[in-house]
């Protein structure tokens, strides 16, 4: 890549340009105020980086709760649980429903043949 000389004076080139750059750099350094770092600043930065990288420490009670929540959120397990619950509910409902219908039928028969016994 060719560096284009932007100096308006074509005769002013070579070592004098480098000297100008060095002076300009020194001037810029002196113009920018750099605040003093607090004591043990690098150690603090490294400590924070280590803490951020370290795995989150959890207590025993919370750990199993998190594990259980993660287990519950597994799609296959959730689907299986839903299926089991629905089948169980349906079976128990059908059993109780047929028992209730049977009792209703018994009450209807009793009301027909022995109405006085019910009072």
């Amino acid at each position: 890549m060719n560096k284009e000389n932007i100096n308006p004076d074509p005769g002013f080139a070579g070592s004098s340009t480098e000297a100008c750059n060095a002076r300009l750099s020194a001037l810029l350094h002196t113009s920018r105020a750099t605040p003093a770092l607090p004591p043990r600043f690098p150690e603090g930065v490294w400590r924070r980086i280590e803490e951020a990288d370290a795995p989150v420490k959890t207590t025993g009670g919370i750990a199993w709760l998190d594990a259980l929540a993660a287990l519950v959120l597994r799609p296959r397990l959730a689907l299986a649980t839903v299926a089991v619950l629905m089948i169980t509910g349906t079976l128990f409902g059908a059993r109780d429903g047929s028992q209730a219908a049977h009792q209703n039928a018994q009450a209807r028969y009793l009301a027909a043949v022995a109405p006085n016994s019910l009072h």
Partner: protein
Amino acid sequence: MNRSLVILLGALVLCAALLGGSYAVSRRVCQNCMSKSASDLDWLQQEFHLSGAEMVNIQKLHEGYLPKCAEMCAKIAAKKLELETAMNGSTNVSPAAQQKLAELAALRAQCQAQMLQHFTEVGQTMPPEQGRRYLAEMQRLTLGLHEQTESSMSGSAGHEHHQH
């Protein structure tokens, strides 16, 4: 922790809702389906596993018994009305009221005897084992109910004494 707890509680609520919902829907549907045929004798056929021929005989007996039962019910209702009239306004049990009570008791005994006779006839149309079971079940359900009422009344009377 809070997030895990919320997830678990939500899952529990969802599980309870699913179980309860499927139970309620299934129970309702099953009960409705089984109660569709509203014949008085459905229970007999289900409980005692009776054949079509046995059910025809029982149906005849049932239809013959119902008018007698209705007649007896009407007599008892009329006698109860007479008793209420005899008791109306009086502070003690008059001889006329006692007479009505005795007549009402006699009518009830007659009604029960007629009912037991019907149960016996129905039981005889069934296979012997089922007939015995039917008779025992009907005695338990009809005469047993009186025993329950009497024992509960004696219990409540005692309770009232304690209250006073």
